[in-house]
């Protein structure tokens, strides 16, 4: 296996840090190009008037998911060396609810708010400020939420493992859902035009 490069030694700790802004730049570029630095466009997702968020997010997810699986299969990437977030069922469910509400109201998420701010949008800066506040608020109330925050921990588990199916099966399921979503998105847009 030749990758991840940081795990095989091909990329050292300095290289790892240098890679960060480079990867970030490409990330920011890919967000701005389809207009994800423009809040009304992102919010349009929730009114089914503009499905860019869904299209970008899920085509990115599919690409990375399929790419990672096949690179691993071909012996070019060792997937088990790639950090996967750990699962905490209830905290992440609550986190999703809070985040979803915030996303709807703000029209930007952490990454896109930086793109918006970098493009000169004041709303981007305000979202950034709000997020810093939200994080600080979390730290302030941490002693009271700590038990909940650490509850229902399952470790680094995939939903495929939880459903007792193979990884390949899980990938097929996600692909089915994503492609189905693209088809529906197309129908919605046709109906509106």
């Amino acid at each position, binding site marked *: 296996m030749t*990758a*991840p*490069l*940081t795990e095989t030694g091909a990329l050292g700790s300095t290289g*790892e840090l240098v890679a960060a*802004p480079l*990867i*970030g730049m*490409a*990330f*920011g*570029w*890919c967000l*701005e*190009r*389809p207009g994800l*630095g423009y*809040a*009304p466009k992102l919010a349009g997702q*929730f*009114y089914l008037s503009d499905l860019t968020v869904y299209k970008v997010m899920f*085509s*990115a*997810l599919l*690409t*990375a998911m399929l790419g990672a699986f096949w690179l691993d299969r071909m012996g070019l*990437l060792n997937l088990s060396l*790639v*950090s*996967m*977030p750990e699962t905490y*069922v209830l*905290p992440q*469910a*609550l*986190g*999703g*609810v*809070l985040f*979803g509400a915030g*996303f709807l109201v*703000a029209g*930007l*998420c*952490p990454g896109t708010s930086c*793109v*918006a701010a*970098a493009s*000169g949008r004041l*709303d981007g800066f305000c979202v*950034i400020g*709000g997020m*810093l*506040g*939200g*994080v600080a*608020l979390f730290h302030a109330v941490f002693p009271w939420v700590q038990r909940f*925050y650490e509850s229902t921990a399952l470790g680094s588990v995939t*939903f495929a493992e939880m459903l007792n199916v193979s990884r390949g099966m*899980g990938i097929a399921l996600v692909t089915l859902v994503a492609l189905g979503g693209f088809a529906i998105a197309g129908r919605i847009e046709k109906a509106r035009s």
Partner: protein
Amino acid sequence: MAGAGKPYSDPYLAGIGLGLVLLSAYVWVGRGLGASGAFSSVVVAASTGSASPLGDWLVLELVGVAAGGYLSARLAGRTRAAIERGPRVSRRGRIMAAACGGVLMGLGAKFARGCTSGQALSGGALLSAGSWIFIAACFATGYAFAPLARRLWR
């Protein structure tokens, strides 16, 4: 308005590009993309006065995100000092909403250990169960509360 500047890129192509960037992150540094973690680092560094946030990978990455976003916007003629908002909300209302939404996202991202970039996108592509729980909860909530937020966007 989105009128000025060049037209936006096709979302599917941009998405594939983004997916390749994410894949390159897996390959180069064995991790996915992220964003909210950088905000976390900054707050921690500010309050404890400890290690420089610049040493944190996510902070460096986010600086890159801003740079890349700026570059793309500049080249497309989309840079503008403005407050983007829906047609019926005032500037002040939009600013308040942006800040409040930000607070909610900051809280939510802490509980979830990530945001749309780190959990939904990067974790989702790795099939992480928690990431998919986050995706479902996030979008379900957004759609559920959309009617209440109509004045902001419609």
